[in-house]
């Protein structure tokens, strides 16, 4: 009798906790979307911010900047991150000699640590190195390089996980047929790991879309559409910050945030679709 009571009490507590978590999340997203969408018109997407204290105008240039920023960052971070992940899983254990082993374990530790570092630290690093020392200024280039530093650990880790999930029997089967290590990776392992690696890349893109602090100190804040790699700009997340802190247009901040939230939800949905494809294909 007592046990049943405890069981029911435990169930109720966990159920309430779960419900509470979902409610908090829904109210944040719901509030932003509900409030934000009230101010969204077609012009909001097709005009650029006009600057000034009133915060007038739409978000066109910030959408374009966000897209530029995501693409540029992925262009840098994807080859480096995926390459490093492949090295760590497929080659590192074959490394001969104590030196390479030490380098590899240092790299692993570095990746673990960097994945947990707050983004503003990457921002400060980017500011010191790219903005100041390399004289790239507040620019797309600085922001994309700093953003790459932020998401490379994410991409490395998801690539590693995806590669480790590929059964060793595939590797053995391919090598036993006389394929080289590289042919095995390129023709058998990467195709199997592709959905997982894609998930990592989309996660990275999501980080770039939603991060603010790191771009505050690398991208600058110009509300114009950047015309070169060395031009400053304003991503959507950054625009929300500027609108909220430096203008009176809190409604516009909300509207931009709503667009941002929807975008992030869409990206997460795409990750879900990819992972569902993984489980379907390996069944």
């Amino acid at each position: 009798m007592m046990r049943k009571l405890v069981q029911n009490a435990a169930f109720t507590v966990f159920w309430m906790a779960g419900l509470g978590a979902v409610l908090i999340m829904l109210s944040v997203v719901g509030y932003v979307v509900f409030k934000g969408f009230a101010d969204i018109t077609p012009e909001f997407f097709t005009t650029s911010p006009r600057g000034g204290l009133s915060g007038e105008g739409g978000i066109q240039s910030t959408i374009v900047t966000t897209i530029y920023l995501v693409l540029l960052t992925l262009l840098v971070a994807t080859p480096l991150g995926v390459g490093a992940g492949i090295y760590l899983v497929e080659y590192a254990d074959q490394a001969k000699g104590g030196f390479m082993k030490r380098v590899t374990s240092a790299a692993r530790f570095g990746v673990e640590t960097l994945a947990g570092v707050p983004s503003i630290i990457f921002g400060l690093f980017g500011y010191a190195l790219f903005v100041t020392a390399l004289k790239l200024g507040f620019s797309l280039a600085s922001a994309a390089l700093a953003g790459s530093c932020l998401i490379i650990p994410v991409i490395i880790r998801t690539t590693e996980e995806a590669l480790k999930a590929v059964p060793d029997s595939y590797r053995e089967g391919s090598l036993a047929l006389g394929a080289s290590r590289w042919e095995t990776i390129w023709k058998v392992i990467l195709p199997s790991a592709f959905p997982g690696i894609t998930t990592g890349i989309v996660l990275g893109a999501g980080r770039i879309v939603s991060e603010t602090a790191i771009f505050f100190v690398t991208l600058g804040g110009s509300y114009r559409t950047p015309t070169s790699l060395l031009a400053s700009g304003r991503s959507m997340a950054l625009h929300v910050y500027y609108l909220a802190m430096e203008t009176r247009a809190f409604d516009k901040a909300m509207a931009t945030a709503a667009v941002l939230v929807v975008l992030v939800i869409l990206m997460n949905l795409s990750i879900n679709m990819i992972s569902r494809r993984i489980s379907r294909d390996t069944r």
Partner: protein
Amino acid sequence: MEQVRLTTRDYSLFYGEFRALNGISLSIPANRITAFIGPSGCGKSTLLRSFNRMNELIPGVRTEGTVLLDDGDIFKEDVVNLRKRVGMVFQRPNPFPKSIFDNVTYGPRVHGVRNRSKLAAIAEESLTRAALWDEVKDQLHKSAMALSGGQQQRLCIARAIAVSPEVILMDEPASALDPVATIKIEELMNTLKEKYTIVIVTHNMQQAARVSDFTAFLLTDENRAGNMVEFGPTNRIFTSPSDRRTEDYITGRFG
């Protein structure tokens, strides 16, 4: 006198400091089925994997002695070329998550065959030899993962055959299969030996007795190193073994 395809002379293998195989000397005849039997951990799979140098994938492996394929030292041969000549079928069917056609033609493609009709011919020939063609000829572009376990294993045999090896190593090829699929694999081995030299590791002594022409019995010594106790024609090993330990093992007194 049988023609010899594979020879080991005083061959030992170490994992770091641990000696896993101890001074193995044997000659595996061409176009015959040779079975390695022995209790778990006796080194029979390690010995099998020596012939295509798969043990080298494990860090810290070191060997002593000689292993010859025909008359060539396999450790001096290019490993890619060696594995082309010595194919392998694993314990669990391991088709790639690709189509049946892409699985069979994987090896030839890796070795440079690009011509589509040539690949198609290789696929048909290999699948026919592996007794799978009739079952899959209308679904070559279906995923290999959709096949049954027994079909997958025959596909893996076809995949090994497709690179025209001289030797096929089979590491307990039927242990993950049901009895019907097992019989099919065994029948297949019997037809394959006309063209290939087959070396099989098996846990199942009836299987060794049924399919093999020669049997090697391996056993660990007091240092857990694998030693070859006896090697000879299968019917002699199973009817009048010369070593007491072989007799004890095949009569089921241990292992």
